[in-house]
């Protein structure tokens, strides 16, 4: 088990680190952190890779033009969106239907 084995593994969410943020994650493209909502996951991620929160969040909103998907589905609730154990999170550009 890697160094964060003390955390309860089942409550972990996997976050894909976008290329432009890998300067904060030491080049890692995936990191698992605990959290029941997107906001909590980002807080936990920021603890491991300081500076992440400032980039993806803007107060209690996501930064302009940024969306987040949980298990492949764009989270309409943004930071308040619920996150289950084993969920996969990705940061994506905002997309609209025509």
């Amino acid at each position: 088990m890697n160094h964060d084995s003390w955390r309860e593994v089942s409550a972990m969410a996997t976050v894909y680190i976008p290329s432009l943020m890998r300067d904060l994650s030491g080049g890692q493209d995936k990191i698992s952190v605990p959290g029941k909502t997107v906001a909590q996951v980002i807080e936990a991620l920021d603890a491991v890779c300081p500076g992440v929160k400032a980039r993806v969040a803007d107060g209690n909103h996501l930064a302009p033009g940024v969306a987040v998907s949980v298990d492949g589905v764009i989270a309409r609730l943004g930071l308040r969106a619920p996150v289950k154990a084993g969920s996969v999170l990705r940061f994506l550009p905002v997309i609209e239907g025509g």
Partner: protein
Amino acid sequence: MNAQANKPFTVVGERLPRYDGADKVTGKAIFGPDVALPGMLHGFILRSPHAHARILSIDTSRAEALPGVYAVVTAADLPPAESTDHRYAHDNTFAGDKVLYVGHAVAAVAARTPPIAEQAARLIEVEYEVLPAVTDVLEAMRDDAPILHDDMRTHSLAGRGDKPSNVASHFQQLKGDPARGFAEADVIIEREFHTATVHQGYIESHAALATWSDDGVLTVNTTTQGSFAFRDHLVWLLDLPMSKVRVIPTEVGGAFGGKNTSYLEVPAALLARKARRPVKITMPRPDVFLATGPSSGAFFRVKMGATRDGHITAAQAELCYAAGAYPGSPVGSGANVMFGPYVIPHGQVDGYDVVTNGPRVSSYRAPGGTPANFAAETVIDELAEKLGLDPIEFRLRNHAKEGDERIDGGTHGSIGGIEVLEAAQACDHYNAPLSGPNRGRGVAHAAWGNWGGRSSCTLSVNGDGTVSLVTSSVDLSGTRTTIAMQAAEALELPPERIRPSVGDTDNTGYADVSAGSRTTYATGIAAIQAAEDIIVQMEARAAALWDVPAERVTYARGVFASGTDQRFTFAELAEQVTGSGGSVSSIANVDVAEWGAGFSTHIADVEVDPETGKVTLLRYTVVQDVGQAVHPTMVEGQMQGGATQGIGWALYEGYAYNEQGQMLNANFLDYKIPTALDVPMIETVIVEVPYPKHPFGVRGVGEPPIVPPPAAIANAIYRAIDVRPTHLPMTPAHLLEKLGLIES
């Protein structure tokens, strides 16, 4: 009859008369500009003549003094804005301290007659300090460009910019190691493309009629793609309780994404409140071009590499999209369309959302997709040619399957792209001979993600066995019919038993805008769920009447049965329903989180006059996977209409600006949408790869067909006269430049 699902369909797949047909062929259908009320005043919006200027002062006194004028409003009449997004919407309703595009609304007047309102607007004195303007996306990105928003810094996941910029945001998608991918490639192509701003071109303009009741309830009749979206906009900008705002949608005379955004509703509401009279504003055609939401002009740099055996090893792209005065261009969805259909082991896409002195863009059918596909599919066509491969063969060899990972990190769901390409390869057009000088055949392929979203549908059983259907999904092109057909299929009733109608925000559940090719798909799912619930309720009523346990009652092909000899037809049971416990109705509210992408391959035959550069379309075919066609005639209509808009985008349409940022062609004479003479019959090949997450296999249909036309036509032009266009629209002048017959 389609035997995709476990049992053949009886209604889905039929070519039925549409429910809204009679009113539309007799002129009785009521559109936005057709609504009126006694005592109604007429509104007129004063718009900026400058593309970029500071507003020093606004004096409305002479306007207010003009006889027949009842109210004049400006930004001062709006509640103050809070967040940045709020301020942008606030300032785009009535300019704050700066006007950012020609046509930017500055004030509005309500008067007894339209001429008085217009004359009064001319009496409003606005003092401007004119600033330099920029409309081209690359110009706007330069360090020395005029800055639109002094407080704007470039947002990116790499951190926040440190100086004023017109680049609102930058995102990057990265997969694998592009440098290594290009090193493995035998052939590499790198090209640049410029595409013009285009407009949705709906023939019905915008119109809004606002009325306040004496107890403070605002009612707005308007032509919109989403009554709830417009209600939310009114609530947000006027700071009103949601329950006191009612939006009633009229018939919509074409929208294509351009009526997702509210332009006249807030001004009309402000005027009506101040004048204490109903106020109606209709938008003149020039203002529709100048001040609504076109689709982004853009710049692309595309680089792709492939091995001699025809496998793409790497792809890289930069997309710069002009958003207009406020951020929010569709560069994100453009990026996803770019290399969407293909497996790219090493890929990188950088997208830039750039503000310019133009109207803030809105959605236009597969927003951002068409220009991105033009860039990518031109380079793919060139790669195939350099490798000596048939264009469709090369695309098939690199095509993604379900589960493959995209450059943006997502994975493909159930997709029918390969089946579509194979159907195109086998179709009559692709195998027909094409001879004669300066003629060529081109192909292009595209995927569009489509959308699910929130929908609501209410079914009510009537005493005669008919069923009333009410949905909040505005019907842009026939979805009343396609939703009613899905309800009829689920209820196992003849379609004429269903009467569908579109409700408003006071009598239906919440719905997202009718956009993203979602309405037949997602609202259909709501209709089916409501239908299943109706059957359960009716089975319970039958059980009660027969005094048997509900589990014993079955329903099939319109007949309830108790397992013994007791039987009711749907109508027989319906007649007794009101007497046995009150009416039966059901409302289904859904938020559909997953949906099936739509793939579309187009084939174009063109002839080019080598002396004038004029392109003539000889033949055009659309091949598209629709999952399951609910109403084949309407599916063909979407394929033909979408393709023709794409053809306009390819050959004729584009905003022309002068140095001062003024649009030179804000009319249907010089903003040229295709006429009946400019396109041949559009042949259609419907492919059906059912999408498993819809009960009948339905996929979105509306947006995919607008994406491939520019690339298909560009590739056909190349085979006709041996030049590859790199600019949209591919005007005769552009082709003469490419042919070296005139200098650019």
